[in-house]
């Protein structure tokens, strides 16, 4: 019998969807291990406000570490506080989110605890009392089933792959004050610059509208933005590498082998040919739409729905149709 802990990410004090996915997976795994699901949330004073809602995602107990120095993610402080809480419990597994933050935090915690970490996991089950996971390798060109022989076994899960629903737990909240030794920090954040428009990161979005070289130039991105906005909340813009290398879009938007790996509900590829390195980053999307004037473009081999045509004609019409649909509700 052992418990499972989910590390829950917040940004600006708001619990993120990826954190709820971690809690729901912890609940499923805890049931198999015969223990209970706990959640760990770190943040500034007052972050506990919404912590009880994690009960709906399956948390039996939510431990909230509040400290003024923890409002924003700080690698050394978060790693130390997380390791303390893991040591204080009896955990078979600890679940992180495979977000920018989780990919920074997980390896540090693994090194401090001397246990292995499986990153970017897309399936996790318990077999013969041990954690067995599946993770894409070679940028998704193969899947590896991997057994983990460690207690706790650490995993980070790919956003948007796991459910947030689980049998509800009591979600009792316990607030503690972590030890923070800011004087010992070897790194300091000196500046934070938000990307324009408070836009969502492409790796977290549930709908991605992505543009390639077929867009002809950065001045045409308004067409993609119109479609993205019509789609509503939870959407982000993506880009092919050709577009990023040309300087039309920032690297943070690049999808693919040397960019972000994404798994949204809907991925719309506009004027993107579908090179193997691009497909690597988006082929686990639930639904893929391609708009391309070349019927032979490889993107159509992975697309669920395709329109063959000139994107400059298709996009405005598509945006209108989506707006009409959303207006009807």
């Amino acid at each position: 019998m052992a418990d499972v802990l989910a590390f829950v990410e917040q940004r600006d004090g708001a619990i993120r969807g990826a954190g709820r996915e971690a809690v729901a997976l912890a609940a499923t795994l805890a049931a198999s291990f015969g223990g209970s699901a706990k959640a760990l949330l770190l943040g500034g004073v007052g972050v506990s406000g919404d912590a009880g809602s994690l009960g709906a995602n399956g948390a039996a107990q939510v431990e909230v570490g509040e400290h003024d120095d923890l409002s924003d993610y700080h690698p050394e402080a978060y790693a130390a506080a997380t390791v303390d809480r893991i040591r204080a419990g009896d955990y078979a597994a600890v679940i992180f989110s495979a977000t920018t933050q989780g990919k920074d935090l997980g390896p540090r915690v693994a090194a401090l605890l001397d246990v292995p970490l499986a990153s970017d996991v897309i399936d996790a089950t318990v077999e013969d009392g041990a954690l067995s996971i599946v993770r894409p390798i070679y940028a998704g060109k193969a899947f590896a089933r991997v057994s983990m022989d460690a207690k706790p076994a650490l995993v980070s899960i790919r956003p948007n792959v796991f459910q947030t629903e689980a049998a509800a737990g009591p979600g009792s909240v316990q607030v503690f004050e972590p030890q923070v030794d800011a004087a010992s920090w070897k790194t300091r954040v000196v500046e934070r610059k938000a990307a324009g428009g408070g836009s969502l990161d492409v790796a977290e979005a549930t709908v991605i509208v992505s543009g390639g070289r077929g867009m002809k130039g950065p001045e045409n991105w308004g067409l993609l933005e119109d479609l993205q906005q019509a789609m509503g909340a939870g959407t982000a813009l993506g880009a092919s590498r050709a577009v990023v290398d040309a300087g039309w879009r920032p690297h943070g938007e690049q999808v693919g082998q040397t960019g972000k790996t994404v798994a949204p509900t809907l991925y719309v590829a506009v004027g993107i040919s579908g090179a193997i390195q691009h497909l690597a980053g988006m082929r686990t999307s639930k639904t893929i739409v391609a708009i391309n004037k070349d019927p032979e473009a490889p993107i159509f081999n992975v697309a669920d729905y395709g329109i063959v045509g000139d994107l400059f004609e298709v996009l405005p019409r598509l945006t209108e149709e989506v707006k009409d649909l959303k207006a009807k509700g």
Partner: protein
Amino acid sequence: MNVIVCVKRVPDTETRIKIGEGGKSIDDTGVKFILSPYDEYAVEAALRTTEGAGEGEVTLITFGGEASQETLRAGLAMGADKALLLEGESGMDGLSTAKALVAELEAADAPLILFGVKAADGDQQQVGPMVGTLLGRACVTGVTQFDVQDGKVVCHREVEGGVEVVEADLPAVVSITKGEYEPRYASLKGIMAAKRKPLDKKAASVSADRMNVVQLSEPPARAAGKIVGEGAEAAPELVRLLREEANAL
């Protein structure tokens, strides 16, 4: 200032991956191997650092098999000064890899150790921060550009929703992502010179892997899609299918 770059040999990103006999590794017949793309950015960053300072050496280190020598030569051809092969097998357990590297890095005289943000084979994105943590050094991940000044390294890193500027005390470990450091091509002269640059080998200090591949499989094929139609006329039908069939809108 000396800079060390940890690099890895990986299959070319163009490669179609075939699963080998036994199902636990890939079939590497006919596969071309390269220096992992993010590691190339890291090598470029290291070269610019020593070139900018007008002093210091760039050393490449890899943990892997004999064949990794070719990868090290590729980095030497870009301009690195020397290389070290820690012979052993680098598997799925990134912590084992980190420990093998740390055994060498602990005593190494380099205030800056660079990594790629992830290796283009296992895509674990973990060895850099594990090494930084095991060494007890300042560590910054996902860095697009940095400057070394006054005993510190000032790093720009991509985070969700923006950019962060982080200042780290030296000695430091930094993992590099795509950004400022578009890798240079090796010149013919560089390739010739690389053949004569020092490349040492020694047995790696290995620890047991606690993460083991049970089975590799091909990703599930996507069900054949459909062409909804041609041109703007097809838009209404696409929207209908997305709502009614795919539940995606």
